[in-house]
Each structure stands twice: as structure tokens, then as C-alpha cells.
């Protein structure tokens, strides 16, 4: 209605011949106080309408006058507004009164007519009348629709503003600075990320290397353990059993057999539960045979891991171990096996003097 006000406000100005300034309105405040002045002034626009609507503005005039009088007591700046409202109001009432015959179904115009009829209907009463009871008229619905749109826009705007309120109010240079800082920070973080990734790759490689070295060491330890007799071993091989019915077998014969087996590629040997390794020795003690200080009795069972196809012929060659033993009234039998278990162990002995020179 503000445009309405504007157009209406412009209308009385030529009629009044007063400029639309605050100073110009002050005389407008004054005329309603003098009943003679406003009446001819207002009768000009109402005249074409007819005598019917005439009372409306006339009665509106004292009402506005009362308000304007109250307004004059108020500060001048505020007082200017109701003064204009008074002028607009009276003129607008004329206009709505003039519209009444044009659109009788028009609800708001109809509302204006009782306003004219009831001279004591104040703005507050009009507000109450407008609020209750609710009336479903075309005008109300249209206004409701427009206000719905307004509320929608208001809510949307409020929400979109509160979404990123931190940056919305910032000045342009602040935004540029923030952007620069963010860029710097991003760069720093990227650098750090790169550095950390490099470090991770390095660590992974080194840990891979360490793992590989550890595996190799374990493998080597196992191999060396087999040689040193500290771990059990299994694999294909042969079993050599030497029976000594006549007591003719001596330690050198067993040692010959061991040498022969080693020459043929034996990898792990045990004799009657004693592991034979590099520093093993055979000795004759009181008619019995000792291996590494442990007495062993006939029959002597050699469990040998190696290639059976090499080991067996090595023992059976003419003039070899088997023939020599048989010549001494002993029996020697060789049996191949796909799985020989050498599980006799030697304790790990730390050498007294020799130290590894690889470290």
C-alpha cells in the first residue's frame, strides 16, 4: 500500500498546493485542528463521489485530527509521519469510498465503508476486526498468498544467510587475505604430506629389507643348524645297519663308513641316537665304541640323509665299507628310504676362542 500511499500522497499535494516536505506537512497537521480549514479542502475530492461517502472523510478528519494533535505533542520527526498519514488517510478513505460502488464485492473497500459509518472506529478496532473473525474473501486470500511468498523468501534468505555466517559479512580484502592464508596453509600441508609419504616409503622399503634379511638369516641358521646338528632334519636317505655278532667291529670301521657316506654327499647322520657332526669322534673304550664320549652298542644303525642313489652304491662298491665289514664277520645292510628322520641333537656350544669376523 506504500505505493498507494505515494500516489495518494502526490494527489493531495497539487490540491493543497503545499510542498511535500516535513515543513509543508506541519500546516496539514494544523488544519484538522481548525475545523473550518480541512472541510473545504476535503470536500473537493469527495464532491464528485456524491453526498453518500461524504461523511466518511469528514468524520475521519477529527479522528486524524486527534491523532495529529497527539502527534504534535510527540517529537517533530515522528509527528511528521502521522501528519502525512492523516492526509493520506483522509484522501485514501475518499478513494476507497469512491471505489465502493465500483466493486461492491470488494471486501476491503467494504471494510472501509463501515469505517466511514462508524465514526469512532479506531485503527486498533480495525486491526481487531481484521484479525477476528477470519473472512475468506478473494482479497484476503490474495494477500495471504503474497504474504506466504514473502514468508517463504524471508525464511529462505535467513537460512541461507545463517549457513555461512562467518564469511558472509567479511570485506573483500579480508576474504582475499583469508583465501591467501588458506592457499599458504594448503601448500604447507601438501609439502608436509609429500615429506611424510616419502618417509613412509623409505620406512617400508627399509622394513622390507630388514624382513628379507631376517628371513635369509633364519634360513641360514636352519641350514647351519643342520650342519651343526642343533636342529632336527628329515629327507630321503638310507639306513645302514651294521650287526656285530663277533665283536669284530671297531671304531675305525665306523669312521670309514662315516667318511664314505660324507664323500657320497651325506648331509645329516646319526648313529644309534648320536648326531654325527664335524667334530664328532669315535673311540674304542674297553671293547666298546664311543661316539663323542657316548657308548654305543651293536647293532649300529646309521640314519643318513642324502641322495639314496649316491649313498647306497658308495657303500656297496667293491672293496668298500660293506665288503670290508663282511670280511670281518660283521653284517651290513643298506636300506633306502624316502623319509629318514635325523632327530638326535647336539647342544649349541659357544666356541671359547673363535669369534665371528663378519661383524
Amino acid at each position, binding site marked *: 500500500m*506504500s505505493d498507494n*500511499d505515494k500516489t495518494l500522497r502526490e494527489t493531495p499535494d497539487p490540491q493543497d498546493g503545499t510542498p511535500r516536505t516535513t515543513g509543508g506537512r506541519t500546516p496539514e497537521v494544523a488544519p484538522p485542528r481548525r475545523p473550518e480549514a480541512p472541510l473545504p479542502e476535503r470536500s473537493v475530492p469527495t464532491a464528485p463521489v456524491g453526498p453518500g461517502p461524504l461523511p466518511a472523510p469528514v468524520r475521519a478528519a477529527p479522528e486524524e485530527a486527534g491523532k495529529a494533535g497527539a502527534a504534535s505533542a510527540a517529537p517533530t520527526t515522528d509527528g511528521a509521519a502521522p501528519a*502525512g498519514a492523516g492526509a493520506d488517510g483522509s484522501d485514501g478513505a475518499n478513494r476507497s469510498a469512491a471505489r465502493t460502488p465500483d466493486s461492491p464485492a470488494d471486501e476491503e473497500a467494504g471494510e472501509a465503508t463501515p469505517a466511514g459509518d462508524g465514526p469512532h472506529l479506531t485503527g486498533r478496532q480495525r486491526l481487531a476486526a481484521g*484479525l477476528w473473525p477470519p473472512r475468506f474473501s478473494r482479497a484476503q486470500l490474495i494477500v495471504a498468498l503474497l504474504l506466504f511468498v514473502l*514468508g517463504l523468501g524471508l525464511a*529462505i534468505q535467513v537460512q541461507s544467510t545463517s549457513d555461512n555466517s562467518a564469511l558472509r559479512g567479511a570485506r573483500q580484502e579480508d576474504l582475499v587475505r583469508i583465501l591467501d592464508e588458506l592457499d599458504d596453509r594448503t601448500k604447507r600441508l601438501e609439502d608436509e604430506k609429500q615429506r611424510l609419504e616419502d618417509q613412509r616409503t623409505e620406512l617400508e622399503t627399509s622394513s622390507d629389507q630388514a624382513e628379507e634379511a631376517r628371513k635369509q638369516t633364519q634360513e641360514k641358521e636352519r641350514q647351519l643348524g643342520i650342519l651343526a646338528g642343533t636342529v632336527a632334519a628329515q629327507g630321503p636317505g638310507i639306513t645302514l645297519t651294521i650287526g656285530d655278532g663277533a665283536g669284530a667291529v671297531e671304531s675305525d670301521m665306523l669312521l670309514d663308513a662315516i667318511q664314505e657316506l660324507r664323500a657320497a654327499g651325506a648331509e645329516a647322520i646319526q648313529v644309534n641316537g648320536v648326531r654325527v657332526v664335524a667334530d664328532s669322534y669315535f673311540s674304542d673304550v674297553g671293547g666298546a665304541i664311543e661316539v663323542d664320549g657316548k657308548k654305543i652298542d651293536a647293532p649300529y644303525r646309521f640314519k643318513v640323509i642324502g641322495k639314496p642313489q649316491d649313498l647306497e652304491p658308495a657303500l656297496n662298491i667293491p672293496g668298500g665299507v660293506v665288503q670290508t665289514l663282511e670280511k670281518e664277520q660283521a653284517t651290513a645292510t643298506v636300506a633306502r628310504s624316502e623319509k629318514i628322520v635325523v632327530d638326535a641333537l647336539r647342544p649349541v656350544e659357544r666356541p671359547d676362542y673363535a669369534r665371528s669376523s663378519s661383524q
Partner: protein
Amino acid sequence: MIAVLGLVLGVVAGLLLRPEVPAVVEPYLPIAVVAALDAVFGGLRAMLDGIFVDKVFVVSFLSNVVVAALIVFLGDKLGVGAQLSTGVVVVLGIRIFSNAAAIRRHVFRA
């Protein structure tokens, strides 16, 4: 009453539905809302004055919104969008204040 209901419904719908505003309309929405607010305050004042005409209200509401958006659009094209927006808001704010003063006089008689 129906009008107040419409306003409340609009706010509730806007808060609940959270519709996405098209990017084209986005810069004009705040100024359009302010313009519409001005129209609403003017309409309320006219109602209290007893001179409310729905047709005028509708036309003023729509034209306010359109003109405000147009001014902002023109300002954006001329490179003075921010300043022109401020100007529009100031003008509309003054009008809203004067209308609110008139409404206050009606309602509180002070």
C-alpha cells in the same frame, strides 16, 4: 487473519522445506524481501487507516519486488550493485520506519 496465517505458513514452509534458491535469483532475494516487507507495512498502515484496497496492495507488492530486483540487477550490470543495494535498503528502511510509526500510533496511540 488469513493474511497472517499465510505469512506464518510461508515462514514455516521455508524453514521446513529448505528449498534451493536458483543462483540467478539469489542476489535479488534479500532486496525483494525487503521491498515486500515495505509493501506489507504500507498495507498494514493503510488497513489501520481504513483505506486498504487489495488491488493496490497486490500491485504495490509486486511492483516493489520487481523494481527492487531490477535496481539491483541494473546496479550489478553497472558495477555499483552493492552501493545501489544499500541505497534501496536505506530508502525502503526509511519507508518501513515511517509506516511502522504510523502503525504504532494506531495500535498503541503513542
